[in-house]
């Protein structure tokens, strides 16, 4: 008996040692984590108690990334946008606003751009912002030209030149009107201080430290947990009202809402950062202020004109009349997105061309289908033509919480006019594959938005390979339309440019190549003590500079 008892004892002690061994390695690690977080909260705590120091805490789904101004993921757009500055900023309605360039001249032939840089701008390490540094940044960007080839101006740059300490000149290969607008994008055309460059000068291999001219300085950083930005007191422009901005990584949308309710964070901001139901609940609770931005981009459906029923213009037009967009935005997005009548919202440059919206009218839709030869047989609910039923496929992103319910609603809308819709929900990459092959009748898509559109929109339309050019091949005037799209980017004459855009938007609208659904917006939810929220016109910029806390 004793022998057996002893053995049981040994077995259980072994189990416990294994378990404890597993724990101890972790707990030591946890302790070190805890120690560093204590430091962070030690420094944060006086900020809250001392009335003069204002700290704003926000959440973001992901880590801010390495803050490299010239690279893409895992750098987060918002962080690069708030941290680094462009030569030119994108303002309300696409108006170009001086930023690090005080002014600029464009030569007669539209190929040479001379930037007069702002004087007395210093980087956070105390060095001067000069034409030399601008050139250094351009050199590393152009060394990785292929990576940035999506941005028209990069592939157009032939030569960069330091004229004097505060003048910088860029020569393009050919005329390209959106060049100035593209200097406002977040990446890669923003400026890192010389000391931040790696030894080989190529920022594609990483940066030494994030040295900026901007209003914020990264002061503490714990990857995947938290980043603390402190106001740059030597900032050349209007300094932020708050002293400290803490960005907490909260991956789960519902947890973000709970963190706001608990008071762990002071602001929820961005596109699709919380579910639209949660947004409405917070708005109706009366405890928080909520705001919705102007249109930033468009959500639309690409209609494939090359094959199937939508090769016929009348069927495309019927689609325009049959989908109840207002019900879609009200029902699915609780009115957070705005119903869209045109593919590019009228608040975008050159896009306010007075197109007549298609009204929601089932009778019109039905008669258009009749004209197209799709008749409703006696006793059936799906139309037929030559014995073939009217069936189409709608592809959407399976995990998208807006596209999915919208797709279902469109399915039932189209059922009412006798069209049977097959829904296909795909993971993002697989959906891209289908899009590139133009292998669907209808496909959910969204534009790049401000500051990229409308010029980036037209280049995605005329360049083969993304599936949009391919889906437009059924148009009788496809070649002419795509030629106009190429021409508009090269026109330097403002009136001619507007004329071309008007023609392009009119053709796309009349030919019903897109079914515009809604305009995407950013949302903000914050307690009443947060004031001064103003949405930037630029999709990837943030409103932190103007925010204030009044407790």
């Amino acid at each position, binding site marked *: 008996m004793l022998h057996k008892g002893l053995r049981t004892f040994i077995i259980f002690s072994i189990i416990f040692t294994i378990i404890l061994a597993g724990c101890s390695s972790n707990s030591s690690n946890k302790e070190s984590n805890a120690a560093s977080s204590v430091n962070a909260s030690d420094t944060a705590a006086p900020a809250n108690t001392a009335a003069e120091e204002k700290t704003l805490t926000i959440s973001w789904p992901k880590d801010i990334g390495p803050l490299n101004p010239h690279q893409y993921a895992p750098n987060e757009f918002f962080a690069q946008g708030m941290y680094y500055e462009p030569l030119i900023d994108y303002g309300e309605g696409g108006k170009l606003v001086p930023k690090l360039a005080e002014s600029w001249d464009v030569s007669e032939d539209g190929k040479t751009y001379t930037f007069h840089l702002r004087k007395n701008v210093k980087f956070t390490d105390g060095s001067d912002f000069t034409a030399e540094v601008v050139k250094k940044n351009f050199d590393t960007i152009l060394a990785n030209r292929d990576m940035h080839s999506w941005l028209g101006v990069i592939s157009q740059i032939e030569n960069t030149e330091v004229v004097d300490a505060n003048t910088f000149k860029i020569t393009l290969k050919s005329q390209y009107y959106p060049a100035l607008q593209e200097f406002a994008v977040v990446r890669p055309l923003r400026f890192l201080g010389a000391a931040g460059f790696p030894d080989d000068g190529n920022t594609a291999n990483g940066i030494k430290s994030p040295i900026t001219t901007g209003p914020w300085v990264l002061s503490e950083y714990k990857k995947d947990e938290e980043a603390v930005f402190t106001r740059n007191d030597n900032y050349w422009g209007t300094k932020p009202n708050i002293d400290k901005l803490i960005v907490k990584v*909260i991956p789960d949308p519902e947890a973000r809402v709970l963190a706001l309710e608990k008071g762990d964070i002071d602001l929820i901001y961005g596109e699709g950062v919380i579910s639209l139901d949660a947004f409405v609940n917070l708005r109706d609770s009366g405890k928080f202020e909520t705001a919705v931005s102007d249109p930033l981009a468009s959500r639309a459906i690409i209609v494939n004109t090359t094959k199937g029923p939508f090769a016929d213009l009348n069927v495309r037009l019927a689609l325009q009349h049959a989908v109840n967009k207002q019900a879609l935005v009200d029902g699915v997005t609780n009115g957070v997105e705005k119903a869209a009548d045109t593919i590019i919202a009228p608040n975008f440059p050159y896009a306010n061309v007075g197109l007549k919206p298609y009204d929601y009218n089932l009778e019109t839709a039905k008669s258009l289908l009749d004209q197209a030869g799709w008749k409703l047989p006696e006793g059936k609910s799906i139309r037929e033509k030559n014995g073939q039923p009217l069936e189409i496929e709608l592809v959407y992103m399976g995990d998208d919480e807006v596209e999915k319910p919208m797709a279902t609603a469109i399915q039932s809308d189209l059922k009412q006019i006798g069209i049977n819709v097959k829904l296909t929900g795909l993971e993002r990459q697989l959906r891209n594959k289908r899009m590139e092959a133009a292998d669907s009748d209808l496909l959910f898509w969204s534009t790049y938005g401000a500051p990229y559109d409308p010029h980036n929109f037209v280049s995605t339309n005329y360049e083969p390979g993304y599936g949009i050019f391919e889906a437009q091949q059924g148009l009788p005037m496809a070649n002419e339309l795509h030629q106009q799209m190429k021409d508009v980017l090269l026109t330097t004459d403002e009136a001619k440019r507007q004329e071309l855009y008007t023609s392009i938007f009119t053709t796309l609208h009349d030919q019903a190549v897109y079914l515009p659904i809604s305009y995407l917006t950013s949302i903000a939810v914050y307690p009443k003590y947060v004031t001064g929220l103003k949405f930037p016109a630029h999709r990837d910029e943030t409103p932190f500079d103007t925010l204030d806390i009044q407790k």
Partner: protein
Amino acid sequence: MKISNFIWKRIWMTVPVLLGASFVSFSLLRLTPIDPAKAYLTVSNVRPTDEAVSAIRSQLGLDRPFFSQFATWLGDLLHFNFGTSFYSKLPVTEELYNRLPITAALAISSLILAVAVSIPLGLASALQKDRFIDHVCRVLAFLGSSAPQFGVAYLLIYFLSVKWDMFPLQGADSWRNYVLPAITLSFSLIATYSRLLRAGLLKGLNEPFVLYAKARGMRTFAILTRHVLRHAIRPVITAAGMNLGKLFAGSVIVEQIFGMQGMGGFFLESVFRRDYPVIQGYILIMAFIFVFGNFIADVIQTMLDPRSALEQGKVRGR
């Protein structure tokens, strides 16, 4: 020596398993129709121009032939180098090194909690069969196996964190961060384990040795804990061994909700990004953990009942 032989054999068996897992994951990934270069650009919200795609492909070494890529990966693996993440450009070992401890702490604490709660629950419901406690345990088990993890998690957060502020909501800084996620994860395990244990105990009570023990005047509780439990706990240990791997691999939802930057959410994102080196490294580690979990369970089984190792020895014709 019998047991150590058995252990050595099991350790050697992991080598072909790991090699097989790495080859299969390596080839399956390259059979998928999605180009990681394009995936990277899409994640970056950049239009995938031909120039950019081919620049990235050569940067990532994806333009090289399949076997050359596999040879490099295998060669690096021998030096414990899992390659560099396509996405973050950091070594995969570093990425996993930062995340594995969080997931490990979560998995092991959930497992301990589950076993620790299941034993008294199982004992109580076996002793009080078809009486009040048994019914309560049955309802608990029913809830545990049917309630979705995210539901349990949000309920716990809402009451214990937001309302009563007993535990932090996000992060993995201190042990207090692990309490709610561990409860969430162990909830469904407790349901399974306590029912397994109850069934085992009730079956054990019919064994002749229990009758003899009773004849010797031992009390039922003592018989249960000192004799029957040793046998009845074996299925629970097997299940726990299998669950260890599952907890490492499948705590995605809980990690996301509680903002713990562990392996689960990282892996899921890497799949969407088609980050081959991370996926390969992750699969290899998971294969190892599954094998290891089962191995530990088997070792404990053998110790609880050395006959199982002996039987294996006999079959080998020792």
